[in-house]
């Protein structure tokens, strides 16, 4: 196992570098005038242009530019934005908001998704099963953008139950955006759980468990659920990495100052250093949680051995 993890870690390095290089290329090096791209619509003084060219080694070939960036990155220096604020400070300020949002979303995803999936899977083709099937189809079909507005209109403006913008009310502020962010994954978890349970209920070892004279509750919990949840738990694990990087729309609509909204603002303002820094971080999260899930898989399913 240790060797497997080490090997996987080594394999993630090229992906991490590749992804940040891709973003770096898009931000700084697409054909055209990089300074024009960098500065966007603002007027830029020649002095600033000179500093930028120096800072990003714009007169060097692209690989050299990226190599300089990478060297700084490894020494913990993500650069500064146009106003001279270190990108690292921006991340430190915004990341906690995104982490809280992700936590709330994963909580919704796991609790609601699992409960719905288990109830549907145990009584397949029953009323609740059909309800889950139809409602998950509807939920995955509603774009997050639309869902966010509907949630704001209904629960925020009409009913007044939840705050619809900002983080002033602490954890309570995260309920609505968390639910919106979780919706798609929640529906998927419900379906995955349902399918997995329905499949396992027909498994030979469940028949054995009944033949052993185990009480029905034990047959379901210890011999059906335990096995069915392996793919679900691993999906939720990997989804943490996705949610940490996928909250651009939710954070923007709900006005939450997290890394998603920050990266969106920075893209609009063409703050290249901030964009590359945050995106690299998001890619890191994504890869990291996928690795965690692979390891988790082996822990949960003894048949899987990576050595």
């Amino acid at each position, binding site marked *: 196992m240790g060797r497997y993890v080490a090997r996987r870690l080594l394999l993630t390095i090229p992906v991490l570098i590749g992804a940040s290089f891709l973003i770096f290329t898009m931000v700084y090096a697409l054909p055209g005038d990089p300074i024009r791209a960098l500065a966007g619509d603002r007027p830029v003084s020649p002095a600033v242009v000179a500093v930028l060219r120096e800072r990003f080694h714009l007169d060097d070939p692209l690989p050299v530019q990226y190599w300089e960036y990478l060297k700084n990155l490894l020494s913990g220096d993500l650069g500064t934005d146009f106003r001279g604020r270190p990108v690292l400070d921006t991340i430190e300020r915004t990341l906690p908001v995104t982490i809280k949002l992700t936590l709330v979303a994963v909580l919704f995803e796991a609790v609601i998704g699992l409960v719905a999936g288990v109830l549907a899977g145990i009584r397949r083709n029953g009323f609740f099963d059909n309800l889950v099937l139809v409602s998950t189809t509807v939920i995955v079909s509603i774009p997050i953008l639309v869902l966010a507005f509907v949630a704001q209109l209904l629960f925020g403006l009409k009913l007044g139950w939840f705050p619809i913008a900002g983080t002033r009310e602490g954890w309570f502020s995260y309920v609505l955006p968390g639910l919106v962010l979780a919706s798609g994954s929640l529906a998927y978890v419900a379906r995955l759980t349902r399918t997995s349970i329905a499949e396992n209920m027909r498994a030979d070892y469940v028949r*054995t468990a*009944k033949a*052993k*004279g185990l009480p029905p509750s034990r047959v379901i919990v210890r011999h059906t659920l335990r096995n069915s949840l392996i793919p679900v738990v691993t999906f939720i694990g990997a989804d943490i990495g996705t949610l940490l990087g996928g909250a651009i729309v939710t954070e923007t609509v709900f006005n939450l100052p997290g890394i998603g909204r920050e990266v969106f603002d920075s893209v609009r303002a063409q703050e290249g250093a901030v964009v590359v820094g945050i995106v690299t971080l998001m890619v890191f999260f994504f890869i990291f949680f996928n690795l965690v899930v692979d390891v988790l898989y082996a822990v949960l*399913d*003894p048949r899987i051995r990576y050595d």
Partner: protein
Amino acid sequence: MTLSDIDSTGAAPAVPGASLLEVDDLHVEFRQRSGVVNAVNGVTYTLAEGQTLAILGESGSGKSVSAQAIMGILDTPPAVVRGAIRFQGRDMLTMSAEEQRKIRGPGISMIFQDALSSLNPVYSVGWQIGEMFRVHQGASRKEAKQRAIELMDRVRIPAAAKRVNDYPHQFSGGMRQRVMIAMAIALDPRILIADEPTTALDVTVQAQVMDLLKDLQQETGMGLILITHDLGVVNEVADDVAVMYAGRIVERGTVDDVFTDAAHPYTEGLMKSVPQVEAKGGRLQPIVGQPPNLAAIPSGCPFHPRCAHRRLGAAAAPGRECATDVPPLRLVTTGREAACHYSEEVLGA
């Protein structure tokens, strides 16, 4: 093990003087959208302490389904079970689900064909064997594991104490089936149902597993129902044999009698279709035709479309037309029953 031990596990007391197991006119059908599948159509037999009854038949003959009905592990619906299954005199089909459950394990136990898929892949074998003691007897984790090791020793798994924490996939096929057996005999059941226990195994391993089952039966005096399509296994192990076709028993008798001279054309066909050591050089004769479709079982004798002895129309004796009159299971010679209008002609043929 005495009957009072069963009482202590919560199962109901036996009716004095009753046979160990009486299956009486058992019917099982599966109601599906496409129609009704009649898997078992009136099966009757008894099993005594220490007796080994082989149930012989091809796949789809209802032998596995009838066994699962006895265990009470068919899902109802879609399955519908009728008739009576009396364990020590008490009908399991009229018991509450909870009473029935408490018989599974200490009363009747079952092992399945494919031990790899029948064992839960995510628990160690020790945990799965020990679960019997923990659930039925409230044993502690530690105690359950200790007794699991003893059982693994008893079914001759080498280095049991070391392997108790291993998972099913880490065992060989034969060893896995031993784990299944250990689990099934954990609570000293009065009846063990073995559903094709050796079909998935190599020939040499088959013999070892069958020997183990026989030895265990001699030690404990349990009744053994052996479900198989393997005539060799029946010949070696069983006292009596019941041959099933299309959900019915078509012939029943001692193994020696039935194997020497079949009284039903289907049994006769089975004997001729397998190679026999004694009759080297003879030609094998497969049974012509297809096994019956259980959703549309032929009228009359279900075997008549494939039967070499059938008599149709005017050729038949009154009330014994093979395509219209269902032959009852009847005594044809001493200790032998067959469901054929013309068993007397088949015997000695």
